[in-house]
């Protein structure tokens, strides 16, 4: 057998990727794991002393509650996002090519504007005597301002608003690939429209839907600035907790332990997704 000659030099092109991946992705993540088992120093910094107390800490009622609250908020947002995003992506895939392009453009323009400023728009809407109050009182639905700003619903709206397009794109990318003649075949074979949808369309667009769930559920546990801006101090997310532990309490090991748990949750969801859909890449990630 003749040894295949090596194309010398090509491996150099991989060097930067390996460097960044190992040093700036793997390195920090490994350090996070190490940090989560270390002990917090008395005043500042970290002592190299193995402990499990950071993980035990999470089970304190106040922190456990934050996790549960955060989970609840993420779940609420994700359900709402599914309810709006799935039909949107589905109907969008049925549009004519020209309109598909137009709607896609309309979806993309907000994406290119600062998410903070878009959230600020909701402040204008929600604040006392703001747009929404004026509208509702003008129509006569409500008597007094609702004072929606800095409430739980405001945070949910903000989350849905910030993450909706990820779901839409994921579902759309899945529905776009769908061979509609399969649905027609199901109808031809005697299925009602609803049955055809449940037995053909839904299973075939499931990867998109699930990918959308991951792409919205995971970030919504960490987007602390939305809870901050629209929720005041009333809604505390795991993300806010991590930030506080880092910036205010300077308890890095505990922040690391919280991150490890969040990361584990993330990995679990992604591996579940891969198990269910038998794919390696998230649908509509880009």
């Amino acid at each position, binding site marked *: 057998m*003749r040894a295949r000659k090596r194309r010398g030099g090509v491996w150099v092109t991989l060097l930067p990727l390996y460097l960044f991946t190992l040093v700036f992705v793997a390195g920090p993540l490994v350090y996070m794991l190490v940090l989560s088992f270390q002990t917090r120093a008395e005043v500042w910094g970290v002592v190299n002393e193995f402990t499990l107390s950071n993980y035990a800490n999470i089970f304190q009622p106040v922190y456990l509650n934050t996790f549960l609250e955060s989970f609840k908020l993420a779940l609420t947002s994700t359900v709402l996002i599914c309810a709006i995003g799935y039909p949107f992506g589905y109907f969008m895939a049925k549009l004519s090519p020209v309109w598909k392009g137009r709607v896609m453009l309309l979806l993309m323009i907000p994406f290119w504007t600062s998410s903070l400023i878009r959230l600020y728009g909701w402040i204008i809407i929600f604040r006392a005597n703001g747009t929404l109050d004026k509208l509702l009182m003008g129509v006569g639905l409500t008597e007094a301002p609702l004072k929606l700003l800095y409430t739980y619903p405001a945070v949910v709206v903000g989350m849905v608003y910030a993450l909706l397009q990820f779901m839409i794109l994921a579902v759309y990318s899945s529905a776009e690939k769908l061979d509609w003649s399969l649905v027609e075949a199901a109808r031809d074979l005697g299925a009602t429209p609803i049955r055809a949808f449940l037995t053909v369309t839904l299973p075939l667009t499931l990867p998109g839907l699930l990918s959308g769930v991951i792409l919205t559920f995971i970030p919504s546990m960490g987007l602390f600035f939305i809870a901050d801006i629209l929720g005041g101090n009333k809604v505390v997310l795991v993300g806010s907790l991590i930030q506080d532990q880092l910036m205010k309490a300077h308890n890095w090991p505990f922040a690391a332990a919280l991150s490890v748990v969040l990361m584990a949750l993330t990995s679990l969801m992604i591996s579940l997704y891969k198990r269910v859909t038998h794919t390696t890449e998230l649908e509509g990630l880009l």
Partner: protein
Amino acid sequence: MGETILELQGIAKHFGETDVLNGVSIAIGKGEFITLLGPSGCGKTTTLRIIAGLETPDEGRVLLNGKDVTDAEPNQRDVNTVFQNYALFPHMTVAANIGYSLRLKKKPKEEIKKAVEDALALVQLTGYDKRMPAELSGGQRQRVAIARAVVNRPSVLLLDEPLGALDLQLRRQMQLELKALQKRLGITFVYITHDQEEALNMSDRIAVMRDGRFEQVGTPAEVYDSPRTSYVARFVGTANVLSGTVRAVKDDVLSAECAGGCAGALCRGYAFAPGTPVTLAVRSEHVEFTRDPDACGIPAVIQEKTFAGGMLRIALTLADGASLIASRHGIDLDVQTGEAVRVTWRPENAMPVDVEETA
């Protein structure tokens, strides 16, 4: 065929467990038009890629102009390729595509311009130099791909099913043009196709490939008229293949017992002892019908008559269940479906195939 320009010596290539090529050897002469003919998966494209330097063989050597180029990079070989899908660079104009190899050689601008114009004239596309590949029709792209490959005047031009994507009419026309081009340039063509008609029309020699080997190498007439194996007989010109037993041999003509009847064939220099099994190949147009019960022939029943492409095609079943095809020019014949007939042929139109060389 003059001096040898390209020689393959015992080329073998394995991809994992599968042997794609099993010791392929051939010497190709200067100015020759040779076709590698075979179905997909027979190793013809791999052979071509090894000549081009896009693959390295696991065993064997490639000699170009007497030099061993087995391990040379594609850019170090005096060989160019017309790719199956043309592989025109979509971001370059026609002129830039054709002049690419000359620019790599740092030829002066004027010279490149002249060479590109000449190449375009050669393929009758003068004036198309500023077009982008996407703005050309399939046939035009084909011509540009040829122009790009010959602008360097390589020693050998490799063509990988270049006409595969064209419709039938254009394909016929391009066959003629390619052949004329090859005559004019005097470049050796190594041509790949799975279309036996194309191979027969254009080639000086045909190498029929099967499972990574050359099954038979010869002129179109040799391959068509004297297939050495049943595979070649079936693949080139779709012949009938029957098996039987040799009964007698006389004056280089053998007579055999086939499917309960009698059949004759040429011996073609082989020695046959009576009683040995033999496989015979006979083309459908040579199958004749006789009603004479005493003549040498095989009883058969007519199954079906179809008329296609100016030919009447008659499907028959023999007594042992084998099927046989006969064909005729013209629309009708005085035989009816379901009728029992005797089929026969002249011994010089049938030949034994798959004969062990040791015999």
